[in-house]
């Protein structure tokens, strides 16, 4: 840098500052430039998440585990919910692992900008780094919960199928969906704090719109199956059961709809985010 004397100005990086209007490009190259910051934000979220809790990182396991116990008692035992011929606890837990990742991702990311308002007001960085990192941090929780799932499979003597190779792709789909929703909600939350109160309802409603406590096979009407597939988490959750537990719920052509929806959510979310971004520091 030091040999850069005057006259070399042309070679220097130039920052243009001016008003932008309407929709702007996603500027992913800039996000790439700031990948280290993204890494540090994610790392911070992971480090800080369970600080000063007695149970520490075991909360990552306990959350879906407790939910599984409750669901098994009320839906499995009392309501006698069908479970595609699989013991209900593992049937629901296999769904809860990706679902918890998704729902925590939505909740955390929708609050990420408001929670990081001090950063927004004091320093520049691609704002998207905040919601993205809060979702990425959830991957660690996912892995921990997934290990428990493997133990449960051993306990119930269920061997995974070769289809587990599809799991990474299904996880990416959950991630893309969570990111799409997270980008929309976090950007809206900056201006409308109403979002904070709406998110729990969205998550709850979405849980019941996803075959977590019941099997997707309950929906038989072809028309409703199409509508159902608009929820990307349907494909993800049923795909998890299919790949791990060998249920007869192989992702059919309907998963294409789910995938398209999740990508649309993410792309529109990203554009909306970029559009709102320029006023974040002023209104947060």
């Amino acid at each position: 840098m030091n040999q850069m004397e005057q006259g070399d100005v042309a070679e220097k990086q130039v920052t243009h500052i001016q008003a932008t209007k309407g929709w702007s490009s996603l500027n992913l190259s800039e996000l790439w430039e700031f990948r280290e910051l993204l890494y540090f934000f994610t790392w911070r979220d992971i480090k800080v998440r369970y600080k000063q809790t007695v149970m520490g990182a075991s909360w990552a396991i306990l959350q879906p585990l407790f939910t599984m116990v409750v669901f098994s008692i009320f839906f499995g035992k009392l309501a006698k919910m069908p479970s595609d011929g699989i013991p209900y606890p593992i049937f629901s837990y296999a769904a809860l692992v990706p679902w918890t990742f998704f729902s925590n991702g939505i909740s955390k990311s929708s609050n990420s900008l408001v929670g990081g308002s001090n950063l927004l007001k004091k320093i520049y960085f691609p704002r998207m780094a905040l919601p993205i990192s809060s979702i990425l941090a959830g991957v660690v929780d996912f892995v921990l919960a997934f290990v428990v799932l493997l133990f449960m499979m051993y306990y119930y003597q269920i061997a995974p199928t070769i289809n587990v190779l599809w799991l990474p792709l299904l996880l990416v789909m959950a991630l893309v969906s969570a990111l799409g929703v997270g980008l929309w909600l976090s950007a809206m939350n900056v201006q409308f704090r109403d979002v904070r109160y709406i998110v729990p309802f969205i998550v709850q409603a979405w849980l019941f719109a996803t075959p977590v406590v019941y099997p997707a096979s309950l929906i038989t009407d072809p028309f409703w199956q199409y509508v159902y597939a608009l929820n990307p988490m349907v494909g993800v959750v049923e795909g998890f059961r299919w790949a791990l537990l060998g249920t007869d719920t192989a992702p059919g052509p309907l998963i294409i709809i789910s995938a398209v929806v999740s990508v649309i959510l993410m792309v529109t979310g990203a554009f909306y985010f970029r559009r709102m971004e320029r006023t974040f520091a002023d209104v947060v």
Partner: protein
Amino acid sequence: MSNIAVQVDNLSKCFHIGKLQKKDTTTLGEKITHTLATPIRRATQLMKGHATGAADLDELFWAMQDVSFEVKQGELVGIIGRNGAGKSTLLKMLSRITEPTKGSAKIYGRVGSLLEVGTGFHQELTGRENVYLNGAILGMTRRDIDRSFDEIVAFSEVEKFIDTPVKHYSSGMTLRLAFAVAAHLEPEVLIVDEVLAVGDVNFQRKCINKMEEVGGEGRTVLFVSHNMPAVTRMCERVIMLNNGRLVGDGPAHKVVASYMNAGSGSTAERVWDDPKEALSGEATRLHAVRVRNKDGKVSETADIAQEIGIDIEFEVTKPGCVLQPQIRLVNDEGVNLFVAVDLDPEWRNKPRPVGQYKTTAWIPGNLLTEGMFIVNVILWALQPTRILQFRAKEAVAFQVIDSMDGTHTARGDWAGDFVGVMRPKLEWKTEYNA
């Protein structure tokens, strides 16, 4: 192409601010109706395309209007102005935190901005972890931080606690660690807010030295501050903002002096031509107060080594009073430095006839420190009855400037910060016995 580092063209920023409520909703009933109707009102506004957000924001406020300037590479420019003048807005736009409404700016080179010390510090993380996190937030790469980590820790003087969570640090330790990271930034253009105003003085000095040292290699710095001595000492050029407009741009001394005067509402010279507006007592009337330098010229600035004259011109309208003019000197922090009374033997304890008087008090050189001083002028009648004639508060103001020429001043060879409300040059004598 010239060696321009920052170019700002007609930069403007407009905020929507809430309108004052038209009428008070006095009764509880009215309040409830108003509150319940709010969502409907906002929804209607949204439908019409006004993004109103959490409040009814329909009044416009220009925080900055048509500000243009250029900064050359390697320049150290101070930005001054009163609260709300638009300094922070300018800095935020240049650091890309918020977008301008109109106009544009170009910055050539790697930009680093420091609007706050310790942005993103997390209480639960250790000192070491926070150094990395904060460094990344400020735009350092992991390699940069790895390379200067030991230096940062040594600089911060918290080595022993580097693996302790920051929440157990004292506020001073946190600040030192945060400063240490900031001081190791190496951008080509550095934008600094009044972050240096906190922390203990010695450590502040260390940071400024460090920044100047790194900045020696052609680094451009934009620096917002209220600390006028620091601005005049560090920056050659100063930009002054007022109500969102650029109102001064030039050599630090001149701009700072005019800021001082604007701030106190007074200048080096105050003349009351109109007898009706003049301050007066039952036997006297004030005409003028002036600050003069050693050449006798009216001057808003004075060199620290030179004497400063304060003229008081007044008229005696009723004969027979024994009068005593006084000056009281106050510094910019409101500290009363001294009171001096007129001891001229010619008129001491003598009744004065009607006429014009001009008395001058000379403040010796090498007595005051750098900064602004405000002069209050008071005239007492001592006989026949002790009675206050008038008191001209903040009559005039002047600024003492240290030319940094150590041979004639008290600072000797030390070029840094020099504490104290006074700065007398004393006689020093050393006796040596082998």
